[in-house]
Every structure is written in C-alpha cells, then in structure tokens.
C-alpha cells in the first residue's frame, strides 16, 4: 500500500515523544493509505483519547470512522473547557 502525508494539530499530548510534535501546532505525519481517524488516534494518542473533545478534518467536524486522505488537515481538540 502507498503512503500519504497528513497535517495534524493536536491539543492533547501523544503517547510518547513524536518528532515535530508541539501541543496545538501543526506537524506532518506519514500514514498508510486508507488509515482512518480512529486508527490514527489508536496509533499516537491512545493513552489520551478520553481527553479528546472534538475532531475535525479540514475544518469540519469528523467522526472516528472517517478515512483520511492525502493532505488532510486534522484537528484534535481537547475537552472544551471554560476560560
């Protein structure tokens, strides 16, 4: 299977150090074609998935079964607290 590049911006920390990751700042990630949002989260954010409040792909709310595509911009927001 081929690979694709997506852009991730996450407001929750990954399971372990990921090169290029800074909280709330976009970083590029190579994924296998056909990867779903759920699989992405399982791979990188599984320890903190309970702290995800909202997920978006290209600025639109997305569900975890969404299949990712080359160039997608993925936002993983933490729980929408106050302040």
């Amino acid at each position: 299977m081929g690979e694709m590049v997506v852009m991730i911006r996450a407001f929750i920390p990954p399971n372990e150090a990921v090169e290029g990751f800074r909280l709330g700042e976009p970083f590029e990630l190579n994924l296998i074609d056909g990867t779903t949002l759920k699989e992405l989260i399982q791979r990188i954010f599984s320890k903190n998935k309970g702290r995800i409040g909202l997920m978006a792909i290209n600025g639109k709310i997305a569900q975890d079964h969404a299949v990712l595509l080359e160039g997608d911009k993925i936002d993983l927001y933490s729980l929408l607290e106050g302040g």
Partner: protein
Amino acid sequence: MGNDILYGYSGRILRVDLSLCTLTVEEPPLEYYQHYLGGRGFIVVTLLREVAAGVDPLGPSNKLIFALGPLTGAPLPGGGRNSIGAKSPLTGAFGEAEAGGYWGPELKKAGFDAIIVEGISEFPVYLWVHEGEAELRKATQLWGMEVAQAHFAIRKELGDEKVRTAVIGPGGEKKIRFACISNDITHVAGRTGLGAVMGSKKLKAIAVRGSSEIRISNPEVLRNLSRWLAQNFKDKSGVWRYGTGYLMEGYSLAGNLPAHNFLDGSFDQVEKITAQAICEQHRIEMYGCHICPLRCKKRIKIDVPYEVDPIYGGPEYETLAAFGSNCGISDPKAICKAHEICNRHGIDTISAGGTISFAMECYEKGLLTLKDTDGLELGFGNAESMLKLLEQITEKRGLGLLLSEGSRIAARQIGKGAEDFAVHVKGLELAFHDPRLKQGLGLHCSVNPAGPDHASAIHDTVLVKGPQFEDWGTIDVNESIPSTEMSPRKARLLYQYGLWTHLANYLVLCILVPYTKRQIQEAVEAVTGWPMSYWRLMKTAERGITLGKIFNVREGFTDADDVLPKRIFLPQRKGNLGGVDPGKFAEARKMYYQMLGWDEKGIPTTARLAELDIDWAYEYLESMKQ
C-alpha cells in the same frame, strides 16, 4: 482565639470605615473559618449581616470586602487569587469577582485574611497595609490616573518596588457600572462592577506589603503537589502555551463561540482572533501568578495602526470573544486595543464587549440611528466604531453615557424591543460560552446568585465523558450526559458537580491549575490541619450559594430573575444548535431548586438552612416577608 492553632490564615480581618477614618482589627472565632473557609464565604456572610436590604450600591451603606482563602499565599500554584464582593451596582444583587496575581498572597503575608471597607471618604484616599499595620493616605494626587499610572505612583510614593496594588482606574472613579479592580495592573477582578463601588467610596487603591510567614500544617504535602504539577502540567492543560483562547476554533465548530451578539454560535473568521494568532503576531512574553508554572497570561505589543501598551498585558479568551466574534470583528489588533483601553480605564471587558455588541444589533435593526451614535456606523464588524464607542463609554460621553450603565439599563432606555437583544441575566452580561450548547452552564447562569459567572459554572462539554474520566465518579458524576440536554439529570449534574466548581470561590483557588479533586482535598488538609472530606468541602460551597440566594431574595429578586436571555431560547442563526427548550428549562430549574433545598419559587427552606448549619440566616427571610 489563639493564633497558634490556626494554620493557613492570619486570624485577623481589617475593618476600614472611610466615613469615620477608623481602622480596627477583628479576630473571628475558629468556627467562622471552618464554616465558611474564605473568599465568597466571608463576603456573603458579611454582606448579609451588615448590609441592609435596599441600600444604594454606590452609597455609604454598601460594603466592599476583599477576602482570601485558606490556600492563598500557600506554597502551592493556584493560590495567588483573591476575592472581592459587594452589593453589585450592575445587578443590584450579590456581587463578587476574583483576580489572580500576587496581591492576595501579599495581603496574607501582611497579616490579614480579609478587608471590609465601609462608608465613604470625604476625599480620595488609598489604604496602605503593611506588616500587620494599616493606614489611610491621601490620594487626591492619584485621582484621575489610569491604572498603570496609579500603580507606579503608589510604589514610588511608598519607596518600595515590591508593593502590590489593587487599583481602580478612571472607570471606577466615574462609577461606570461595570468598572473593575486591577491587581498589579493586569490581574483583574472584572465582574459585577466592584470598581464602581470602590470609586463611590473614593478609595483609589489598596497597597499591600508583608513578610510574615504563612504557617502550613503539613508543608511536605504541598511540596509534593507542587512537584507533581511541575512535572505534569504540560500534559494536563494547554493554557501554558497560549493562555486561554487556544481552543476557539473548536468552540466555533461546536457552536460555543458567541458571535454577533449571540445570534450565532460560530464565527467564520475565527482563526484570525484565536490566542494562537495573537501570540504569533504580537506576543512579547508569557507571565503568571504567585509561584505558578503555567504562566498563562500573555503580554502583547502593537505599534500600528493602534499603539497597544504592553504594560496592560494581553487579551484572554473572554476578551477575544467579547470584542472579536461577538462584535463580528476579525481584526486582532483592534481587539488588543480594546483590551488595553479596558485595562487602562479599569472596566470589565466582558460587560463592555457585551454592551457594545448589543448596541451594534440595535443599530443594525434600526433601534439606534446615526443621530444616536453621533455619526458612528455601528454595524457588526466595524472595528473603528467599536473602539470609538468604547472610548465614549470610558468618558461617559454621547451614546457611551447610556452604555456605561450596562446593557440592561440601556435596553430599557432605548425601548422598542431592545430588551430582546440585551444578553444578560440579572443585568450582568453573559460570558462567552453559549448556553444552547452548554445547557447546564445555562442553568447555572440563570440561578447563580452572582449572576452568569462562567468561572464557577459547569462546562457540559467537559462532563460528557462521564464517570470514567479522571476522578469525577468520586463525587457521583455517574453517567455521560449530552451537553445540549436540559433535564432533571442535568439538574443533578449541576447540583453535584456544580458544588465542586463553586468550591474554588471559597478556597479562592485558580480553576486553570489541573489538580484532581483528591489533590485539592489533600491541599486544604495540609494547609489547615483540619480533616476534610469532599462532603465537607462541597457543603461549604452549598452554604455560600444559599446565603447568596437569601441576600438576593431579601433584595426583592424572585424566580422571575432566575432566567436566561430570550435569545438563548431561540435557535442559533448559524451554528446549527436549537434554542433551550423553555419547558425543559423550567422543569430542570425547579428540580435544581429542590435539590438545593429551596422551594419551587427558589426560596431556601428552613430545613436546608438547618442542614447547612446556617439557621441564623432565617431571620433575613422572615424580615423579607414582613
């Protein structure tokens, strides 16, 4: 009471009578501290016992109370705050606000747990509290000064660069109904118009300096908690990187970002006004409060087209929404300038922004014309007009004179249906979280005695995770409830979890520091040496809520005031969320009243007063009936 048995407090309260120019020190009994803990607890007891019903909030009989909590000044992040309260000139109800920084810890080190200010001075004064002593000093030379000017002038006069100040600006002096009180220029007790109360008393500032040790029962526990926080805060919260406002794009997606005076719940140019955008373009540093590693406050500097002085800090989330999305404005520089104007003059950004967005809608709907606005094109999105109108408010000039009274009074004056656009509860403008998404927050905003205070609210979008998340199951958050649900079980969530969120007002603890409930309980035990349980802590919060309600009932407030703005019962224009269902709201509010031990009209019952051990307050309900 011997001070040798009281940990975490100084054991002394300073009373200042500005009419008589007297200063006295009181030493409350141990039971007072244990029963009310601090902050909002001390304030509501004092107001209920000492401020008669019906007094003019800007007259000599109102009292202004500065209060600390047990954790204030302790070697623990989050304990940098202080609480301030009075009968509010904006709402006429119980008024309270809090601010961070260093002033609170300094007051405790100066030897006091609270300051009660009463009467009115003949001429401007400031209070100088230092090393267990206090004195009133002439402030005619400070009167008229902007916030930063006054702060530095006081430090210079006292010859000490480490003096901490709580200051009012010209906004408080002019008794703008949403004037605030500013700690060290940028840490602001913004809500309910307490700066106007301070101005009415001709009290320009309270300067504090102290070096006494705050005795802690078990310092080792606090050291461990601080160590844990230092190691974990970057994983637990995002505020340390950008400050509040870093989730605004998520808010907009979810329908939680008020836009165009709450007509909308999302803003299509949100990415231009987020905390990230502000930080990337204009930030010069992050800074924080008393020993806190989060450093969540941003300082910004702009040179053109508006000069924005970094001495006044930078906008938090509420300000970004107030002058940004809710006014339809996407120019971050204009928002930063509006923030600076508010901090310079000492007025609340939430109420100022909410009142201006109200005026914008009135203009768009023809209720205000160019004649009323002195030629200002006041439609949504007009940043220049927003700034000019804000200046008019600070000067109480033109349309600004009317708007300086807040949106409730302005709407009544404008008439012609303007009240439908005034987004307030009890006269206090809503903070910028949409109750159509966070319906439990909406219920809180309607009933909370201090009005729609977002800081002590539950945020439904966090609680949707239910009992499996963190330690929420330990206080009986036992199911996952959708944020848009309004129901009896949402009332239960507000009752149970809401007591915990209110608790921060009594501990005077910052809600942005990500402690677990267990850690907060341990911290209070470690500071005071008193055995603490969740039950005991939450009952303290409930005691205060009920006393606040009695204060309001005595002032003539009824269940008709425990409502939401009309707009919130209508669907969002954009954002796709429906309005709160009026029938479900009424049912949930009735349930919430009853869970609090209030009757169906929202009046506390004698049984609940007895259960909370505040039977003494019953006489105030009785006096109201006569």
